């Protein structure tokens, strides 16, 4: 949608994603801040999961049921935004496929797909955000998560905004477009292979010299954080939204909470 065609203060339904909802709510609040700063009115309808694990496991009935649930919950918004390329990709690229044989729902699925975005690309491409008010001191490296990169063309947008974070230097790791080995249930079903893939990733991360690794998908981030901590590598792992929103008080992913309470 061209910038001029969008509402002045669009109503955005935050699809928070089940991983952020359950594991790392701070990413959800960072997303809310970024969207509000960009001029959106953010609402959070009751939600569970986009259904991707079922879809990728061959369980089409469950995938359709969850998709219909999401379609019902989110249809009334101007936009639907998720802090994840994977979940946004499920809605944008795969909901239409799920209902291709069902004309009634297909129309709604297509409509939802058309207005669903991954968070950072939404900020840049739709809301026209060119900079953020944030500070993060140090050198970071950025992992391009697969679904965002290949299904939604998320590549330049996070780099464009990270470049405006004060104190932050971005240094690219080698093979930043190569999968981290997460792959949803793959990480558990084929743990040994997944491990071999993430080992190469953590090697690339350490070789970059960065003290923090960022990405736009919590699944990949938990995988990389889990491997880095198992390897005893003192590299912090965060969702890119936390840094862009300047909300980095919470300990990094997988790190102990050493704050007073």
């Amino acid at each position, binding site marked *: 949608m061209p910038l001029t065609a969008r509402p002045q203060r669009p109503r955005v339904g935050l699809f928070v994603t089940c991983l952020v909802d359950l*594991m790392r709510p701070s990413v959800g609040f960072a997303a*809310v801040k970024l969207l509000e700063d960009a001029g959106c009115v953010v609402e959070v309808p009751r939600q569970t999961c986009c259904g991707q*694990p079922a879809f990728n496991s061959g369980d*089409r009935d469950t995938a359709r049921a969850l998709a219909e649930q999401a379609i019902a919950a989110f249809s009334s918004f101007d936009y639907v935004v998720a802090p994840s390329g994977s979940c946004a990709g499920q809605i944008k690229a795969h909901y239409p496929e799920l209902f291709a044989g069902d004309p009634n729902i297909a129309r709604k699925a297509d409509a939802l797909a058309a207005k669903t975005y991954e968070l950072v690309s939404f900020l840049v491409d739709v809301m026209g955000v060119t900079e953020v008010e944030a500070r993060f001191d140090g050198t970071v490296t950025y992992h391009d998560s697969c679904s965002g990169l290949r299904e939604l063309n998320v590549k330049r947008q996070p780099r464009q905004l990270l470049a405006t974070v004060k104190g932050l230097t971005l240094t690219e790791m080698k093979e930043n477009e190569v999968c981290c*080995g997460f792959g949803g249930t793959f990480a558990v079903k084929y743990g040994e292979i997944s491990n071999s893939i993430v080992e190469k990733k953590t090697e690339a991360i350490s070789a970059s010299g960065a003290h923090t690794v960022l990405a736009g998908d919590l699944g990949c981030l*938990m995988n990389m954080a889990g491997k880095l901590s198992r390897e005893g590598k003192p590299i912090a792992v965060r969702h890119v939204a936390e840094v862009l929103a300047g909300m980095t008080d919470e300990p990094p992913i997988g790190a102990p909470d050493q704050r007073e309470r």
Partner: protein
Amino acid sequence: MTLHVTSPQFKDNAHRALQDEQLQKAMGNVRQGFIDKRAVVAAKLPEFEALRDSARDIKNHALAHLDLYLEQYESKVTAAGGHVHWARTAEEARGAILDICRRVGARTVTKGKSMISEEIELNTALEAAGIRPVETDLGEYIIQLRGEIPSHIIAPAVHLNATQVESDFRRVHTHLDPARDLSQPVQLLTEARGVLRDRFLAADVGITGANFLIAETGTSVIVTNEGNGDLTQTMPKVHIVIASLEKIVPTLEDVSQILRVLARSATGQEMSVYTTFSTGPRRPQDVDGPEEYHVVILDNGRSSMLGTAFQDMLRCIRCGACMNHCPVYHAVGGHAYGWVYPGPMGAVLSPSLIGVDKAGHLPNASTFCGRCESVCPVRIPLPKLMRHWRDREFERHLQPATLRTGIGSWGFFARRPRLYRLATSVAMRGLALLGRNKGRFTSLPLAGGWTDYRDFPAPQGATFQDQWKSRKAEGRR
């Protein structure tokens, strides 16, 4: 003769591959070699993406009219003095080839590189009939010496290093000076060439595969880099082409378009060194060429893919780009896949050809990273097709019970938002308390596949939806 399929043991195969240091080193070369070369050569050609569309469309058109083009091809081959043999199964294909070899009294058969020959296990059949098959592609020659199958569809010996090849050559080439220097790759190449030269001269029949069969002209096309294919098909008195039916392309013009994406996608070359067109046997005015020209066209289950979602897979031009870019292939190598076709294309094709009950692991052993599809020169939606296999496995209850139970119980809650919120709210607070001090778990019940290799980050505590609701109630937002 039964095919030794180890695809059902994929996990064990993968485990062994991951422990094999030499293999891991060799796979590192795949990661670095093919990918950069392809990227450079693709970037140099402004119309590369448009050519991929065009290649896809040409193959789709050919598949939509497969019967017509196959008949046209047959009539052109016949008109040129050649013979077409139709084979529904691997057994029929082997039978057709053995019949020809026996009729001409063949004792030695030279072979160009052919994956269809691997699929029908032709060498075993020839040997059983007392005929000596000699692979003449260097990589194929090496793995033939070792009694292995290819680990890659265009680089069959990519899993090996030069030291291993040297020791195989010393073991087999006992007529040569034991003190010779074989420390350089070029010395290995020269030695193989010398040995193969005699075989080319002795061969009674030459067998090649085909990258394309051209309906318009009755021509078979091979693309090679070593020149062995040309010697294989021109020197013996009989040339047999073995190809599967989806290799058909309507016209010469179509082939010239697809050739522009084939080598670029495969090896990162603009063109392969040799592109050889063969039409019928030697004509009276020709200076060389075979006296007989045969084409064995194999179905072996492919026609049953037509009209299904898997028809897209029949576009495949066997460039190998999908496996070159696959993180799972990089991790375990080609042999772990347990049958002829490895990597993403094998994960889709193998279940069609040998059954999803045997090859069921392959479409599951993918992270769906999508890099294969992003480089496929004929734009096969490989992840989508792997997912279709998962659908069928789910329908037939072929996946592990734990996965089914896991997805089932998670689905039960996810379909009931109120219950989901209640359950997750309690569970996350509990987990957060348990994991708070370390921020992570080093082991978790039922998640050994994860925690055997990496820690599991602890959740922060109250769920986002719980916190959002209380903030709303407090009027903070």
